[in-house]
């Protein structure tokens, strides 16, 4: 296995609505920053890979225009996933393993403001039995929360504590959208939104983009003082059908953790992509994380959620913990599909 490291990461400030700014216009300054931090130019990138969603943008092949942000001539080696950019990172990592590239630039972007995000996400459901009813993403997450609460996996207070911790951690994150000191007891007094979820249990709607640069061992040490080495990566999927899954636990996360021989005890930090507070609890339980692990020091997706970049943001946030020396071993997690249907784990290390 070739050693690959995260050497740079930049994100746009998380905003509820960027107005008329196009995806490409959002990306250029963030790409410039990510390149500058690694002292690289566009021409030195061997491979670019992006994650975005056409249904979100409202047009087929909408992601093609975003390549302009990289300077599309002379033609570049480029690919795209119709998924969170964390999977674009995975595709790039595979290209490193094939020996084809030494530097890759990954980007994820999405403007959720123009469309109706919860309805857009209905389209990831099976088109025969489920999608025609238009069950939105919040409703499905709410069913999962109800079942987990009924089973006694955690309490509503635990969920409120997750939100309070997220907002508190986000105070230190200049890119976060929702931040501040909140008391769990006050949060619990809020009305429910889609019961049992309250509004604050759901991630916000955010426009933005994120850029991350990977480099092979040969290059990484020149580009970054303390590269964040990707020491394992695994992706597992559960069944498409909600009725055939146990929604109260994350079997695919456990499978990925098992493959990586992950010891929940030996992680300094875990950045978990949990768009809903109860899902962070399900993930923590499935990963058997202890109090030794700081969860979502960035604030996580509850503090700012660019659909299609939120998973990549966990890799970026985990890498930052490594670069700063605050962590020697970090976990980055990304999810996709309804109710944590697919999960990807990656271990990042500082040495």
């Amino acid at each position, binding site marked *: 296995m070739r050693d690959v490291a995260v050497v740079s990461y930049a994100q746009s400030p998380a905003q509820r609505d960027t107005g008329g700014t196009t995806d490409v216009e959002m990306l250029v300054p963030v790409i410039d920053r990510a390149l500058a931090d690694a002292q690289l130019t566009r021409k030195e990138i061997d491979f670019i890979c992006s994650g975005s969603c056409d249904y979100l943008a409202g047009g087929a092949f909408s992601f093609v225009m975003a390549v302009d942000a990289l300077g599309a001539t002379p033609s570049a080696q480029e690919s795209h996933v119709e998924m969170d950019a964390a999977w674009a990172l995975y595709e790039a990592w595979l290209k490193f393993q094939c020996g084809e590239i030494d530097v890759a630039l990954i980007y994820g972007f999405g403007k959720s403001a123009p*469309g109706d995000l919860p309805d857009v996400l209905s389209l990831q459901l099976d088109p025969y039995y489920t999608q025609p009813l238009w069950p939105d993403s919040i409703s499905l997450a709410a069913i999962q929360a109800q079942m987990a609460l009924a089973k006694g996996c955690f309490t509503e207070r635990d969920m409120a504590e997750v939100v309070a911790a997220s907002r508190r951690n986000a105070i230190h994150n200049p890119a976060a959208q929702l931040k501040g000191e909140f008391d769990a007891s006050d949060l619990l007094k809020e009305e429910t939104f889609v019961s049992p979820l309250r509004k604050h249990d759901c991630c916000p709607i955010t426009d933005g983009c994120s850029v991350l640069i990977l480099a092979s061992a040969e290059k990484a040490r020149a580009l970054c003082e303390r590269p964040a080495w990707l020491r394992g990566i695994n992706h597992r999927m559960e069944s498409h059908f909600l009725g055939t899954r146990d929604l109260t636990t994350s079997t695919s996360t456990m499978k990925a953790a098992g493959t990586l021989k992950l010891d929940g005890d030996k992680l300094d930090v875990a950045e978990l992509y949990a768009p809903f507070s109860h899902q962070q609890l399900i993930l923590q339980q499935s990963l058997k994380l202890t109090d030794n692990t700081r969860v979502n020091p960035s604030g996580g997706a509850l503090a700012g959620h660019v659909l299609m970049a939120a998973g990549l943001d966990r890799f970026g946030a985990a890498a930052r913990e490594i670069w700063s020396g605050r962590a020697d071993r970090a976990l980055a997690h990304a999810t996709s599909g309804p109710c944590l249907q697919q999960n990807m784990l990656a271990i990042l290390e500082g040495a």
Partner: protein
Amino acid sequence: MKLPEPREAVDRPIYLRYRYRASEQANRFLHAIKKGKILGVRSVGTGKVLVPPPGVCAESGTLTPQDLIELPDRGTVLSFTIVHLPIPNSRLKPPFVVANILLDGADQAFSHIISETDLKRVLIGTRVRAHWKPEAEWDYGLENIEYFVLTDEPAVDIEQHRALRLEEAARHA
């Protein structure tokens, strides 16, 4: 248990609604064309003039600058094809030409239509000018130009034209 005959197919139409806002440069372009003016922008990365102003120069990956340039409504045919099928909801009768037109002063062509002319005279390098719809019908779009027509100028050597444009771009880059 008697099974029914399987149903073969179902309609599954998907409709999603979006509320778009124009980008800053697109907004200025659209307001200008509503008044009969065509705006472009010069890329800071390549020195080339792009029309309509794209916000980002695709060649260099740079944001295009705020100062937009007004361009004349005449130019040169870069490439074309003759279309014999009617366009739905258009009052144009085929055959007509769909051409990539390089406006004077621009380095990037855009597609439009050439009509009301002897189509055999359309060549690469042919000079054209815009035929606008009546002003009362002007809206926010390039369709304010109903089509282009041939001018009486001699055809241009397109390679020479592009070489000159590249020289000018290099001076500005």
